[in-house]
């Protein structure tokens, strides 16, 4: 899974959100490392919708413009959990306490 995708899914894990909220949450969760351009965000949302990892759950009109709210699907939730577990396992390989200098 690509890093921006991971953070987009992570941004939706607690509650549905609209485009700008996702963009802000991704920046916040990644410590400002992943800053999505609007075009990139909507390419990702389109792809994730096609893969059935997210879905549109609500639509409203704000300032005369449509605003859709996206949410994780059960598949999206599973994919996010699986990726987080994979990265945690990979991190443990490096971060686990080790005896300095090896076995005597």
């Amino acid at each position, binding site marked *: *899974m690509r890093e921006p995708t991971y953070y987009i899914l992570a941004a939706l894990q607690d509650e549905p959100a*609209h485009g*700008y909220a996702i*963009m802000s949450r991704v920046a916040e969760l990644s410590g400002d490392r992943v800053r999505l351009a*609007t*075009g990139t965000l909507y*390419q990702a949302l389109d792809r994730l919708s096609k*893969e059935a990892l997210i879905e549109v759950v609500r639509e409203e009109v704000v*300032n005369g413009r449509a605003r859709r709210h996206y949410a994780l699907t059960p598949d999206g939730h599973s994919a996010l959990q699986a990726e987080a577990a994979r990265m945690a396992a990979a991190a443990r390989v490096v971060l686990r306490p080790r005896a300095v200098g090896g076995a005597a």
Partner: protein
Amino acid sequence: MNERAYEVLLRLYPAGHPRDEMLDVLLTARRPMWREVPALVVGALRARTGNDHRWLYAARAAALLLLIHSAVGSAREVEATWLPLSTMQILVWVAVALAVGAIIAGWRVPAALAGVAAFAISAADGVDWRSVTAYSLAAVLLIIPGPSTPVRNPILLALALVPLDAVALGTAPSWLIGLGVLLWAVVDERVALAVGLAFCVAFLQVIADLPGSDARGVLILTGSRVGFVAAFLLVGAWVARRRVRV
């Protein structure tokens, strides 16, 4: 000012796209335009070209390139009186026209049947072996089973009129066309894949045409052909692989 510019840019997206919503995000985020514009343009072009069934689409697009390219090549040779205008040749062109129409419409079985017919008639005629080689590869590519993938791409139709050999031999304008196809992979890698697949036949044709004693010539041409085929296929496959990743 920004709102008007963004509205114009968002018109590049297909009608079904959430343009309103994107405009809302763009105006709320208030980022510098130079940071937003490239992704907006690339996103719009990708949304317009579509990107499903990459390899299957590329195979059918390669068949389209080969069929048109060879039929146009034969027509040029008939015009230059190097080839006789026979009933068989006319039947080949009819089969090619049917196959091309079916590929564009996404009719898989009629496209495959017409492609095989073009190959069979040209092989029976046995006059223009370069075209026979191209039609044989086109027929094989069209037989590959899979869902309907209409190939409606004006870039491919235009590329079919460019002599593939000239691109592979690297004359200046042709180099630029090749480079353009590689750069276009940012938007639609299937064109690079199609050109790479179609180049395979140019490679086979040239090897068949070379005199056996000219080992250095064979080596140079083999290298250039393999290099070109590899460049287009590798770039296309690399982008396709990245796109498949979520």
